[in-house]
């Protein structure tokens, strides 16, 4: 038992020594694994940012219901009741023509235009907030509201909802493509690294077999190597992603005032970082496992 523990410690130390002995090759490997991990992780972070933005935008799908110019108080109340009774409607807000004009005059460039108006050309309107950002629901309600009496026009932002939906789907497709590709690349890199190590230590493995080393004893250092490479690669990936986000944020800061909003990208939180490290260790171990299963068998004790 003590000897077994001693061997675990020893083979871990040996793995470290071995990595330190060829620092250039090790660095290249770590970079390769790091890059392979950094890309899907970075894409995940960006998508997270994008979805939080899109959430803010699309959480409030709205229909604007414009009333006819000659609608009386009673008509307005009737329409409001019908709107509130419709399924899939969360809130109904009345915007009087006066309020709308004030709002319009606040829009950049319209100020002067509004000031030059002799009388208010805008109609009364309702802003209807939908319960869900579902393009089909928006379409259905648009048709339904249009047919109400004294309703002149219904302006749906379902086109926007649809646009955003399609864009996000596009983004998700891209991230899935990227993850699949880089998953493959990651497997290739770790698998080949362990293969290289096995070939380099061929003589040692043959000899250990001959001397009475168990299968577990021979495989152990390779598992350590794979996991360690995974860990280092994970650290490299985190460094790369954090550095990239910082650089991007520097550029975004210049962009933010133009949109009048806080466009800073959120950095990954500690749990996400830990998960990345853990999964990179697991992937490294897996690469080692596949490679060991495939390549150790071919080594016979002696020719």
């Amino acid at each position, binding site marked *: 038992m*003590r*000897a*077994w523990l*001693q*061997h675990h410690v*020893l083979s871990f130390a040996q793995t470290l020594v071995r990595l330190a002995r060829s620092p250039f090759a090790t660095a290249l490997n770590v970079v390769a694994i790091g890059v392979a991990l950094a890309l899907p992780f970075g894409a995940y972070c960006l998508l997270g940012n994008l979805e939080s933005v899109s959430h803010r935008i699309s959480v409030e799908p709205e229909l604007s219901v414009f009333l006819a110019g000659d609608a009386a108080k009673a008509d307005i109340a009737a329409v409001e009741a019908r709107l509130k009774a419709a399924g899939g409607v969360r809130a109904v807000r009345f915007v009087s023509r006066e309020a709308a004009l004030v709002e319009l005059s606040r829009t950049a460039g319209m100020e002067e235009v509004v000031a030059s108006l002799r009388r208010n050309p805008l109609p009364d309107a309702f802003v209807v907030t939908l319960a869900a950002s579902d393009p089909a629901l928006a379409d259905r309600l648009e048709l339904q509201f249009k047919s109400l009496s004294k309703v002149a026009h219904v302006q749906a932002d379902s086109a926007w909802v649809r646009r955003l939906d399609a864009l996000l789907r596009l983004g998700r497709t891209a991230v899935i493509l990227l993850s699949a590709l880089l998953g493959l690349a990651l497997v290739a890199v770790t698998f080949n690294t362990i293969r290289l190590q096995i070939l380099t230590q061929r*003589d*040692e493995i*043959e*000899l*250990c*077999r*001959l*001397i*009475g*080393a*168990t*299968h577990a*004893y021979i495989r152990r250092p390779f598992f350590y190597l794979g996991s360690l490479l995974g860990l280092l690669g994970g650290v490299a990936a985190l460094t790369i992603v954090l550095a990239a986000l910082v650089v991007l944020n520097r550029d975004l800061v210049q962009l933010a005032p133009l949109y009048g909003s806080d466009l800073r990208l959120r950095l990954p939180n500690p749990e996400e970082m830990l998960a990345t490290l853990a999964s990179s260790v697991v992937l490294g171990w897996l690469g080692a496992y596949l490679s060991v299963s495939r390549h150790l068998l071919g080594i*016979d*004790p*002696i*020719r």
Partner: protein
Amino acid sequence: MAIISFSQVSKRYPGGFEALKAVSFAVEPGEMLFLTGHSGAGKTTLLKLIAAIERPNGGTVLVNGQNVSAMRASAIPYLRRHLGLVFQGQKLLYDRSVFDNAMLPLVVTGQPYREAARRARAALDKVGLLEREKANPVTLSGGEQQRLCVARAVVNRPAILLADEPTASLDAAYADEIMEMFSAFNQVGVTVLLATHDQQLIGKWRKRVLMLYRGKLL
């Protein structure tokens, strides 16, 4: 009971060549004997069957009471821990010192370090390499490397010692010393089986001789 026993063992290599044909013999515990024969007679093949490096195509190989010819792969390492092996073309590890090479069998079987180091030094001393313990094996001459292989084979005090041409690249003086070492081991109860084509050596030591000719035991 015999510590090694072959009964009607035959070995055909892939390709069809029959390296051993119906070989039967028994070795008593504590015996020392020679295995000889022309080049290609099957000496190395016979030793490989004992160490479970190759499997026979027919017959039974018993070592230490275990049926090696039908052994599970996971049991083989534990069989080999009772064997000391010196093979032709066996490799030293050139990424560590002479001392670490001699330590390897003890490290692999998980011996405590201090006792292991003591035994490794004792083995290196016996083959005259103690003062080179910190050197890299690349820097050893052919004969010195051969002696290091012998030290590595005896360091874990095996019950059976199998050696394939252990004196092949040694001059007479060192060859005698190595043979003395094997004999000393034999005297404390180790079974020793040496394959060699050196008739002089066989003549000098007067032990039982197994003679192979084209895969048959004469």
